[in-house]
């Protein structure tokens, strides 16, 4: 080993000893927070508030929807047997769980054709306000006892 190499090696060792020691003192190790700490310090993300099913929702369903969908939502309203496409049975989860709440909302607001479904279902967007339609969607969820998959 030449003299230059010895000096270089000594310099590196010095830097490693002194430099690393200084860094350890300046930046202490930060441990990630535990899940408990996260829960306590981070405010929860606000969830969209689901519309409520009220007595008014049920009355609205009876007044308008039941004409075709039936008093109990079974698709057997007074118009049912005269329609080319039977009205949806709102107590059957098999189909309704394949529909999102948004799709149900749009079908009510803009009519069946808007969601690629039967034209027998008219648009109710000029009759019912959006809050009422949201609550009807939740009422349909109550009838089918299902959520969107």
């Amino acid at each position, binding site marked *: 080993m030449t003299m230059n190499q010895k000096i270089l090696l000594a310099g590196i060792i010095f830097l490693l000893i002194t430099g690393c020691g200084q860094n350890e003192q300046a930046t202490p190790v930060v441990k990630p927070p535990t899940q408990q700490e996260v829960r306590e310090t981070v405010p929860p993300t606000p969830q969209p508030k689901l519309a409520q099913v009220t007595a008014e929702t049920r009355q609205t369903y009876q007044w308008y929807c039941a004409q075709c969908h039936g008093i109990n939502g079974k698709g057997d309203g007074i118009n049912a047997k005269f329609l080319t496409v039977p009205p949806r049975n709102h107590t059957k989860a098999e189909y309704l769980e394949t529909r999102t709440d948004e799709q149900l909302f749009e079908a009510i607001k803009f*009519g069946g054709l808007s969601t690629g479904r039967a034209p027998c279902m008219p648009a109710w967007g000029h009759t019912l306000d959006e809050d009422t339609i949201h609550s009807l969607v939740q009422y349909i969820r109550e009838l089918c006892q299902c959520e969107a998959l």
Partner: protein
Amino acid sequence: MKNLAILILSGLLLSANASAGILEDRNCGSCHRLNTEETSLTAPDLHYAGNKFQPEWLKQFLKKPEVIRPAGFINDPEFLQGSTENRPVHPSFPEEDLNCLVESLMSLKIPGSTPAPTEPLSKGQQAKIKYQFERTFGCISCHQSLNLAGKVRGGISGPSLVNAGNRLQADWIADWLSSPETYLAKGRMPRYKMDPATLGQFTRFIMTLKKENIK
């Protein structure tokens, strides 16, 4: 001259009283609302009968009533049951009552009818509106109508439109479609916002629906 004026005036007043009186005498107000001060009852409002009906149809109906609402009136507690049994049948009236009844009913008017276009639809327009009637607006779901083969089809929760062209006035149809709340505070029919051209064509289409076209 003064005596003549008094005589004419008295005659007009007697005539008006007779017109108003016959609806009362025949107990029409026990089911129908005859003025806006009454509350809605168990049969269609008649306080705008003069806006809505054609007098000749009224005369025929009062002589030989036909079923307009197969499921009953919308306020009927049995409405959603779909049962047509035990429904009250509209009374028929003797020939001597008819003119006075019709005159009375036609005098019941409220302001606001929109003049509807009267020119006939072309075949193309007729086909387009028929498509919209059945598919875009879904009217056929609640109203009986005539299909292309002249057969009656459609739902029963709304009044039948099979003979609408003989029963209704075009101006009233246009007004009903554009502002139904003028006539009924809360119906079971969806509201539509049609552009004026579509509204006019729709009105004309409904006026083509007549029972003599049933095949």
